[in-house]
């Protein structure tokens, strides 16, 4: 609902919540979800919705990014999804930050983006910052959400995993503040602030409540980093006291990884600072079947950027038609949910899941010999068979 007053637009905007899970929620939870949405008065830029069509920024990235981005465009065009992509290319070999700034401006314009991973050459001098990190911190995408679920049809060592990982995305070890005080001695600063820790903890508990999940685990290393992770833990405890219906506990990160490889079913929602989030999310992605299956989402107050969960460039398999498109396609479903095009999201998600269960179509990372285009074609066929009007394949 928007009020056009000369000079600015006043919008009643629903607070950004984490996406719907892969399994359709039971009827009771759905109505509870609607009851949970709260209305906030904000001065915010109008959504890029013109003539009933959304505009979304698309950043192909490097490696397998461009081909997967093409497949997403193909699939959306086929399903007649009312989304137009504004493609912004970011050249990672260029020294200047012009490209990434253009991309950031485009995302500010449109509010939402779908992105592939941009490669960072770590042999370049420290003045060249990671483009992905720059994007996340400039747009203040403070929550990285990854929902790892065991998929039927994918054989893994552990079954029935359903973990939601919420990772602080802007500070912590990724502050990129380093200096060489004396030749041969480098100091790297890890910053933990109370505001950001409270914000991410609040996000985690809100999401847990909205999804009907009963337990939040904070992952930390406060026995060694007493002040830094101690502050994070304090903030989580503070927020937990405001959510008495949700159990809160904490676990040290090395114990967490040990428990994850022996009994991952014990975890529900996990919240943690940046670096531990990186480790834990990659471990969980590996447990459910690999980087080709899990989508990830980065949420901020005003913007949302969707990508593959484990942020791999996949340089070694680029342009060989062997990459697994599932993660990127599921990320595009999260995008559709965010744009409130739920019917399209449900349709495409159902098609993707039915394709993944077919072992014949598994790509190389799942132990099969299928190709990317075969998988996408099969998803399109599955969508067509569900009935709504689509283009011809």
């Amino acid at each position: 609902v928007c009020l056009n007053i000369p000079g600015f637009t006043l919008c009643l905007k629903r607070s950004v919540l984490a996406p719907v899970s892969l399994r359709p929620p039971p009827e009771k939870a759905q109505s509870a979800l609607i009851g949970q949405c709260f209305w906030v008065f904000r001065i915010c830029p109008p959504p890029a919705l013109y003539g009933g069509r959304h505009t979304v920024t698309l950043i192909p990235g490097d490696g397998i990014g461009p081909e997967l981005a093409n497949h997403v465009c193909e699939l959306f065009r086929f399903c007649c999804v009312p989304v137009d992509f504004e493609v912004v290319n970011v050249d990672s070999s260029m020294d200047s930050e012009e490209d990434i700034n253009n991309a950031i401006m485009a995302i500010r314009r449109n509010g939402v983006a779908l992105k592939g991973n941009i490669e960072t050459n770590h042999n370049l001098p420290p003045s060249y910052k990671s483009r992905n990190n720059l994007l996340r911190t400039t747009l203040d995408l403070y929550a990285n959400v990854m929902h790892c679920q065991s998929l039927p049809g994918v054989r893994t060592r552990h079954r029935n995993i359903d973990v939601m990982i919420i990772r602080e995305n802007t500070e912590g070890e990724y502050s990129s503040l380093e200096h060489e005080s004396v030749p041969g001695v480098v100091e790297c600063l890890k910053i933990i602030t109370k505001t950001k820790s409270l914000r991410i903890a609040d996000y985690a508990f809100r999401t847990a409540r909205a999804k009907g999940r009963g337990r939040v685990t904070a992952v930390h290393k406060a026995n060694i980093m007493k002040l830094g992770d101690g502050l994070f833990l304090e903030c989580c405890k503070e927020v937990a006291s405001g959510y008495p219906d949700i159990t809160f506990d904490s676990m040290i990160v090395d114990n967490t990884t040990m428990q994850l490889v022996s009994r991952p079913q014990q975890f529900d929602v996990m919240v943690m600072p940046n670096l531990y989030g990186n480790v834990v999310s990659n471990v969980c992605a590996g447990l459910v079947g690999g980087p080709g299956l899990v989508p990830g989402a980065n949420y901020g107050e005003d913007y949302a950027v969707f990508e593959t969960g484990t942020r791999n460039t996949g340089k070694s398999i680029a342009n060989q038609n062997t990459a697994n498109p599932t993660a990127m396609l599921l990320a595009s479903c999260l995008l559709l949910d965010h744009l409130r095009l739920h019917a399209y999201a449900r349709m495409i998600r159902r098609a993707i899941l039915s394709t993944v269960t077919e072992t014949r179509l598994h790509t190389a990372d799942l132990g099969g010999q299928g190709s990317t285009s075969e998988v996408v074609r099969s998803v399109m066929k599955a969508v067509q068979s569900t009935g709504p009007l689509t283009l011809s394949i």
Partner: protein
Amino acid sequence: THTHTQSWVTLVLLYVMDATTDYFHSMQTVTLIPGDGIGPEISSAVMKIFEAAKAPIRWEERNVTAIKGPGGRWMIPPDAKESMDRNKIGLKGPLKTPIAAGHPSMNLLLRKTFDLYANVRPCISIEGYKTPYTNVDLVTIRENTEGEYSGIEHVIVEGVVQSIKLITEDASRRIAEYAFEYARNNQRSSVTAVHKANIMRMSDGLFLRKCREVAEGYKDIKFTEMYLDTVCLNMVQDPTQFDVLVMPNLYGDILSDLCAGLIGGLGVTPSGNIGANGVAIFESVHGTAPDIAGLDMANPTALLLSAVMMLRHMGLHDYGNKIQTACFDTIRDKKVLTKDLGGNSKCSEFTADICRRIQDLD
């Protein structure tokens, strides 16, 4: 007559020493720190097994509970320090860190006293102790003195905390050199440096540069670099692709516990700490388990495998292999297993079974 007796005694002594020279040469003294909780019982189990194997090890038991030295600084008792400095090799059981004792963690104190810069954890799948992961055979070598655990933290303003991660050239070079030496001495084919240099460009970049430099001097060993998240991702899907991993402190802590989880947990994982001046302390990394202390229920496998690591470090490979084979055979047989391994035998029965197997092997 005095000189005559003296020379006669000297002659006899010389004869006796000559006859027992071989015995004295190979007999080595090792400082044993039993520790707390289940520490004493598993240490005695290890001593019994070593006796059965007739390993040329003499044990010197010491206690390392911290005492306040002159100047008010906490330090380990001087007799323990003197024993370690003399023997150079130590075997340590689990130590408890009482919360309100005032002194820092005992492990930290030992690390600082002997400059234990490398923590080595070989993770090998134990046949007979089933985990979802099979054929794991890797070694994690972790820098133990600096990195994220430097303990340098400040509150800048109310609500903002900064934690400093320190990476130095010397420490990185030292750990890289140790990793390659270890790979060479233990017939390992590749060393992988684990880092996050795309984000922490200068610090992990320095670590990586030093590893590359050291790799130049070891052309027979393959050197690769991999991002921490890629290692985690691949480790839980296929741990057989990794061999020796070398990394700074925090990543090492997380990854070594991850690998321990792959083979069955801390109750069966050996660990060794290598220090400057040839000092090496081998330890079990599990806790003191005060709830089962004194009940003869403890599992001595972790300490035993650490002791085997110690034997290999000392060059006594035959004894090491013998004891390890006996231990693995006992676990594979599944007849006499302690509670945590899935059986319901006592620690003494488990130990006795291993001793019997060693004697059968001889």
